[in-house]
C-alpha cells in the first residue's frame, strides 16, 4: 500500500523502515490519514494482517517518540521490533518449508512402520487414563492466589467437540497441554470420561505405553 504524506510518499513498509532509522520524522506523519485512506480503498484480504502489523508498529514508534526523548534507549522498543523482524524472517522461511513439502510429494520410499501400527488401535483402559491424568495432576503445582473459577463439564465437552470437529483425532497430551490449573485439568478429565461413556469419543494407543489419542466417533 502506498502512503501520500507531506513528508513521505511511498510504500508503507518503506515508511516503517525509514522511521525506525530516523530517516523520516514519525511525528510529522499523520497515521489516522494512512488508516483512513486504507479503509477507504479496496482491501486485499491477504494483506490486511500485514498492514495491521506495520501500522501498529508505526503507532508504537510514534507513541515512543511522543513520550520520550529521542536519545533515550528503549529496550522495549528494541524487543518489539525484534519480534516483528523475527516474524518477517519466519514468514519468508515458511515459503522454503512450503516448497520442501511440495517437493516431498515427488519422492517415494518405504512407508514407516508407524503407519502400520496406526491401523492396530488399542483401546485405553480407564485405569491407564487415570494413571496418566494423576501424573499430570501432580506435575501441575498450584502456587499463589487461588481464583475460584466456575467451569462446567458440559462447556468443556462442547469445547472438545469443537476442537475435534475439524480434525478427527487429537493427542491426549496436546488436549491438556495448555490448561490453566488443576481445576481445569479435573474438569477436562471428567468431560473426557463422560464423552467416552456417551460414545462420542474413543481413547486409543497404537502400541503399549505409546501416547494416547482421542478420536471422535
Amino acid at each position: 500500500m502506498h502512503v501520500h504524506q507531506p513528508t513521505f510518499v511511498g510504500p508503507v513498509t518503506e515508511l516503517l523502515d525509514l522511521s525506525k532509522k530516523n530517516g523520516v520524522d514519525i511525528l510529522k506523519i499523520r497515521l489516522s490519514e494512512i488508516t483512513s485512506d486504507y479503509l477507504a480503498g479496496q482491501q486485499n484480504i491477504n494483506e490486511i494482517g500485514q498492514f495491521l502489523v506495520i501500522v501498529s508498529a508505526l503507532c508504537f514508534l510514534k507513541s515512543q517518540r511522543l513520550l520520550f526523548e529521542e536519545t533515550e534507549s528503549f529496550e522495549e522498543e528494541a524487543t518489539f521490533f525484534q519480534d516483528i523482524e523475527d516474524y518477517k524472517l519466519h514468514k519468508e522461511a515458511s515459503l522454503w518449508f512450503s516448497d520442501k513439502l511440495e517437493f516431498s510429494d515427488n519422492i517415494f520410499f518405504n512407508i514407516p512402520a508407524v503407519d502400520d501400527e496406526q491401523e492396530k488401535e488399542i483401546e485405553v483402559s480407564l485405569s491407564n487414563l487415570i494413571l496418566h491424568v494423576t501424573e499430570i495432576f501432580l506435575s501441575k503445582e498450584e502456587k499463589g492466589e487461588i481464583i475460584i473459577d466456575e467451569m462446567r463439564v458440559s462447556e468443556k465437552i462442547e469445547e472438545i467437540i469443537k476442537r475435534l470437529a475439524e480434525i478427527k483425532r487429537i493427542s491426549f497430551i496436546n488436549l491438556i497441554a495448555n490448561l490453566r490449573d488443576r481445576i481445569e485439568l479435573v474438569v477436562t478429565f471428567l468431560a473426557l470420561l463422560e464423552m467416552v461413556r456417551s460414545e462420542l469419543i474413543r481413547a486409543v494407543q497404537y502400541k503399549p505405553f505409546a501416547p494416547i489419542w482421542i478420536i471422535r466417533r
Partner: protein
Amino acid sequence: MDNQKIKAIIEALVFASPEPLTIKKITDILSERESVVKEAIFGLQNDLILRGIELVYVAGGWRLQTRPEFSEWIKRLKPTKKIKLTKPSLITLSIIAYKQPVTKQEVEVVRGVNSDGPIEHLMNLGLVEIAGQKKAPGNPYLYRTTKKFLSLLGLGDIGALPRIVTLYSSEVTE
C-alpha cells in the same frame, strides 16, 4: 568380508528397513568398522547413479528412495497423499524448527496471535511433538520437530536447515 558383499548387504538392509538406518545400526549388524561401512555406503551411492532409486541421508540415517525425476510415473502407479499446510501452520512450523525446543507462548510472541490450532494440526500430522516441560512458572510444554519432519523434508538432521537470515536475504534481493 569383501567390499562388494558389504555393499550388497547394506543395500538389502536399507531396503528392508521401515525407517532411515543409522550407521551405528549397520556397523552393529555387520560387525564391521564404521570407516568400512561408510566407504561401502559411498560406493553404493555411486553404483546407484544411473538407477531409478538413490541412497540418501535423512533423519539421522540412510534411506533408499525413488529419484524425484521419476515421480510422474510413480504417481500413475499409486495416488499420493500430499501434506498441504496453511500459512499460519507453515510459519508456526518454521518458528518451532528454528527455535526448538520452544514453548507455545514463545511461538505466540513471534506470531502475535494464539497458536493452539496450528500446533495441534502440526502434532496431528506428526511433524511436531512435545519435548518436555520448561522449568519456568507453570511448567509449560516444550515443542520440537519430529523425525518424520526430517524424513519428509529430506533433511539429515536439524542442523541441515538453511540459515534463516540467508533465506530472507535471498528473497529480498530477488
